[in-house]
Structures are given as C-alpha cells and as structure tokens.
C-alpha cells in the first residue's frame, strides 16, 4: 500500500505541475546546486547504500559524473530510491532530474512515456539461474518450470517471449520486491530465477546461502541496454547527460584516468586538449564550464575505472567487460568525438 500511496502522490504532482516545463532542468540544477537522481532500492554494483548510507554503484557514478560536469562537484547529488513501478512517474512529474536505475532502453519507453535514453552505461542481457542440483545445463530444458521474477520489469515480458519462442510452458511467480523474489528462489519455491545477468551475479554473490550451489545458464534471453533516462523536450539537459557518458568512454579510450588527468593536460593530442578544456570551446557548447570533462575524470573516473570499481575485477561481482569493453577491444563502448 505504501507504494500505491507514493504513486498517488506522484500522480497528484503530475496533476498540479505547472504548465510548460520545457527546457529548464539545466537551469534548475544550476540554481539549486544539486542533481536529483532516481536509483534502485538496492542492487549491488548499480546503486546500493553502504553501511554509512552512502550510495555506490555504476548508476550512482553516472549521476555523480553529471553533477561533476554541471556543478563541478560529484557530491552535489541527491538520491531518491524508486521501485520499478514508481520510477517513470517520478521522472515524468519532475521529482527527479535523471533516472539512473538500471533501466532498459526500449521503443515504447521513448515513444509512449515521453523519455529519451542516454548512451547505455551497461550492456546487459537477461539470463536464468538454477540450483546446481537440478542438473539443468541449458535454458531450453526449463519446460514446465516455475520461474521467479520481479514485477514491473522488462524481464517479466521477455520471460514470456522466450518461453513462447521456444514452445515451452512455465509458471511465473511474480513478486514486487527483489528481496522476496530472492527469498522465494533460494528457498526452492521456484526452479529458476530470471533477471539481468549482472543482477543474477550480484544476487548470487550477495544473497545465496552458498554461491557455489547455483549456476547461471549460458543462454541470453534478451538484449538489456541499461541507460540513464531524461524527459523529452529538454534538449540541453539531454545533451549534458549524453556527453557525460561519451566523455567517460572517450577518456578511457585516450588513456586519461583520474590518476593522470593533470599530466594529460600537457598532452599534445588535440582531442585530449579539447576534452580537458585546454583548448576552450567544448564546455561552452554544452552550456557548461570548460573543465566539465576534466572534473568528471578527476573526481569520478573514466568508464573503465567506474566499471572495474563497481561491477568488474575490483568488485564483489567480478563481471567480465564482455560487451562493455571499448569498441577498440571488441566491445560496444564507443564515445562520439568531442570536437
């Protein structure tokens, strides 16, 4: 019921929202000195509060990077936890400036909901996890299985599509909170647990009674490009969020890290000079300070650093770069040229 109330409040906010809000998010953020981001209620590696209540994760760092670019300080952020149902209404009503909540980029979410997606900060895919003792080697063997899934996600529809395409039947057990989905699966109520593969890895590492008892099956049931989301009709703000992502990817490609960014200012590479504001102009084009990308890299890091720290080799999840490697290394991460 709490959720329904929050939703009702959000709906009322839509109802009372003053007319004509196009364009002002960047001005609002600069005036208030804070970027408000919608995040998960807790997903390791993406957005989760630590013991001190400080949020960490790849989505959180995306939000921090935007704050660094706009306000010169990544700590000028505020996080609003949102359930899968609340998230879109919260963005529509203007309660949050950006949604950084491992949200899949789909056509209807842009077309019908009135959003625009920034470049993905994580290319994911839906997978299935099973208990090892079930002896299942492939998702194609799951005919007739009971599958645990969180409600309000693209996962729920993909699950149906996948079983339909493979002419198999299944029984979904759809639960609202991720904690309860996990409880149900680890207690044996379901034969399989389906979610984004990064989420399965996070759950197995953090919630499974014994992580070695569970396997993630090799099949990838869907494409899940996870990206930051903003409202349509506010192009300046959209550009800021989009180019924040590109700057982090370009920085990794050019070997600019949070450690060496000051030395790199002396680089002869014209693209690095433009990126770091040594040759001015780029910041002005985005209505930002010339040190926008410098601050992102110095205070938050390049894409590789963010990946490794939150979900990659330096984290508990230990996920491979896979599709999230740079395009120069066979991945999909491709930053548009800063010029």
């Amino acid at each position, binding site marked *: *019921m709490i959720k*329904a109330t929050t*939703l*009702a409040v*959000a*709906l009322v906010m*839509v*109802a*009372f*929202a003053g*007319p*004509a*809000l*196009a364009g002002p998010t960047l001005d609002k953020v600069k005036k208030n000195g804070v970027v408000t981001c919608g995040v998960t209620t807790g997903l390791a590696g993406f957005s989760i509060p630590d013991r001190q209540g400080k949020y960490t994760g790849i989505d959180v760092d995306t939000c921090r990077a935007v704050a660094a670019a706009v306000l010169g300080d990544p700590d000028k952020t505020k996080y609003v936890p949102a359930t*899968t*149902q609340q998230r*879109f*209404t919260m963005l*529509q009503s203007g309660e949050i400036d950006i949604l950084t909540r491992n949200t899949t980029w789909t056509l*209807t*979410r842009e*077309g*019908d*909901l*009135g959003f625009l997606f920034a470049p993905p900060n994580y290319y994911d895919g839906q997978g299935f996890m099973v208990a090892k003792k079930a002896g299942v080697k492939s998702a194609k063997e*799951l*005919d*007739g*299985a*009971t599958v645990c899934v969180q*409600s*309000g*996600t693209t996962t*729920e*529809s993909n*699950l*149906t*599509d996948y*079983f*339909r395409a493979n002419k198999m039947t*299944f*029984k*979904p*057990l*759809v*639960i*609202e*909170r991720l904690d*309860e989905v996990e*409880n*149900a699966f680890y*207690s*044996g*109520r379901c*034969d399989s647990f389906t979610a984004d593969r990064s989420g399965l890895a996070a759950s197995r590492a953090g919630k499974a009674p014994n992580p070695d008892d569970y396997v993630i099956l090799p099949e990838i049931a869907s494409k899940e490009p996870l990206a930051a989301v903003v*409202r*349509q*009709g506010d192009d300046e703000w959209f550009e800021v969020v989009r180019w924040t992502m590109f700057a982090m990817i370009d920085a990794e490609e050019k070997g600019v890290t949070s450690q060496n960014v000051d030395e790199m200012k002396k680089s002869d590479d014209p693209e690095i000079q433009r990126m770091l504001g040594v040759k001015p102009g780029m910041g002005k084009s985005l209505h930002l300070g010339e040190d926008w990308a410098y601050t992102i890299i110095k205070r938050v890091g390049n894409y590789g650093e963010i990946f490794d720290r939150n979900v990659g080799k330096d984290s508990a999840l230990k996920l491979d770069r896979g599709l999230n490697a740079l395009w120069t290394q066979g991945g999909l991460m491709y930053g548009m040229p800063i010029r």
Partner: protein
Amino acid sequence: MTAKLRILLPQLLVLAIVVGLGAYLIHNTLDNLARQGVATGFAYLDREAAFEIGEKLIPYTSADSYGRALLVGLANTLEVGVLGCILATILGLIVGVARMSRNWLIRHIAALYIQAIRNVPLLLQLFVWWDLFRVSAPPPRQAWQIMPGFFLSNRGLTIPLPSFEGGFHWDIPHLAGFNFAGGHIVTPEFAALLIGLVIYTAAFIAEIVRAGIEGVSKGQTEAALALGLKPRQALFLIVLPQARRIILPPLITDYQALIKNSSLAVAIGFPELMAITNTTLNNTGQAIEAISLMMIIYLGLSLITSALLNWYNARLALKGMAR
C-alpha cells in the same frame, strides 16, 4: 428570494467549486502529459498483454489482451474475497462465541487470539504464513503424498479434479518434469493470502459478534432457559438470530476491508487485481489510466458488497421498526 433557495445556493456553490477544481486538475494533467509526449487513453486494454499469469480461473494466454489479463486478476481477487468472507465469518463466529464462554481456558484463548492478531500488521502475518508454507514443505520430487493424488510440496497442495473429457474420470495430479501436472494446485501464495486474511479479519468479526450477543437483552436467554431450552439451543435459536441485526452493519466494513486488503498479495506473488495492474502499468506506462481503473473496480466491489448486505439487513429488520 425564498428560504429554500437561500439553503440551496451555498450548496450549489460548493458543488461548482469541487467540480471546477476536478475539471481543472484533469485538464491540466492531460495537458501536461500531452506536452511531455505521454500517450493517454484506454486503447492499451486491447493490446496484446504478452505476459504470463501464474494462477488463473478463466482461460488466458500471453497472447490475450491487457483487458483480459485484468479480468484474470479480478477473478482471482473475487476468489480470495468471497472465500475469505465466508471463512472469516465462520471463524469469527466461533471465536466470538468462545470469547463469551463460561470455560476460563476457552474464554482466555479466544481473548488472546483477538488481541494478538488484531495488533500485528497484516502484511507481516502474510509473510509469516508464506514463509511457513514455502520453507517447511519439501521440494516437488520429495512431495508428501497425503492421499492418492493429494501431494504436498513447496509448490503447493495438489487436488484431483473430476474431468468429463472422453467420459467421466478423475484428473489425478502426477509429477511431470519440474512440477505436478493435472488436477488443481493450491499454491503457497494463495493459501498464505487466504489464511492470513481469514485469521486477521476473523479477529475483528469476533469482537463484532461479541458486541452483538451482549446487545441482546439477558432476559431473552433467561426466558429461553426457563422454557427448558438447553444453553446451546438458547444461543442458536434465540440469541444469535436477534444478534444478527446488530452484527450485520459493522460486518459490511470488515468484508470491504478484507477485499481491499487482498491487494497486499503483491508482496507475496499472488496474481490478483493489484499485481496484474502493476505489471500492466509498467509495460504500458499508462499509470493514470491503470490506477484509475483499479480504483473504480475496488470502489465497485465495495459498493456491491455494501448493497448486498444492506439488502439482507433490510430483510432481517423487525417489521414496523424498519425505517
């Protein structure tokens, strides 16, 4: 200006303000949504739902429409609501009578039950029941067979069903792959929701029953006993029929509460109206339409419950005393 008009005018004014404010809000909402490029309207109800539902009373596949999915959810809500109201009334009656028993132990057990259950949040109770059913039962392959065809596992309790396809026979559940096939299965989610709602609501009904019995004049019992009726006959033939008139009106509120509380099922994964609406809302993004529709349905269910019981109440009313 007549006196009548003087009374009517302020009322009309207030009505106009309320309607005007409502119209402004609706108009402003639609305007803002249109400006943000958000689609509105109920056309989504005809689109293919493309999600599967775990438990259904009416035929449904993922190729059916969102409207049909909503009906499946409504049917599940009604199933829990109707069964819940019947069972809660029976249990509430027993506990309410026990609460007034002359036996010290029975009286105090009933009192303890009422106090404990009424004062623990329902959501918590649902989780307890769900965990209990889920964790204590074995996996399907080691299911306990209670009687032929009745298997208890963490997937639920299977029940054989009569089938008329190709002559009458029993559709006996059997283990097929991961789960049981055939017959009917009572899932842990359904059982937890139904039992949780019944036990919670019965505690409130029990107090209403007690108030009803206490509301019947003691002289009625004494007269019955003096006529030679046994205590049990006095209770069922003399006191309870009169107590019914006192019990019925507050009972409506509890029935409505039970139906509305069934929406807590989203937390434990039973696909009732609220759960289906949540999925629909997320897939289509039509939050305002989906929530409004759900509100109208719950309002409708409450009004129907109220109308049915009021009709019954009117029939029970003493002739000549009914207003």
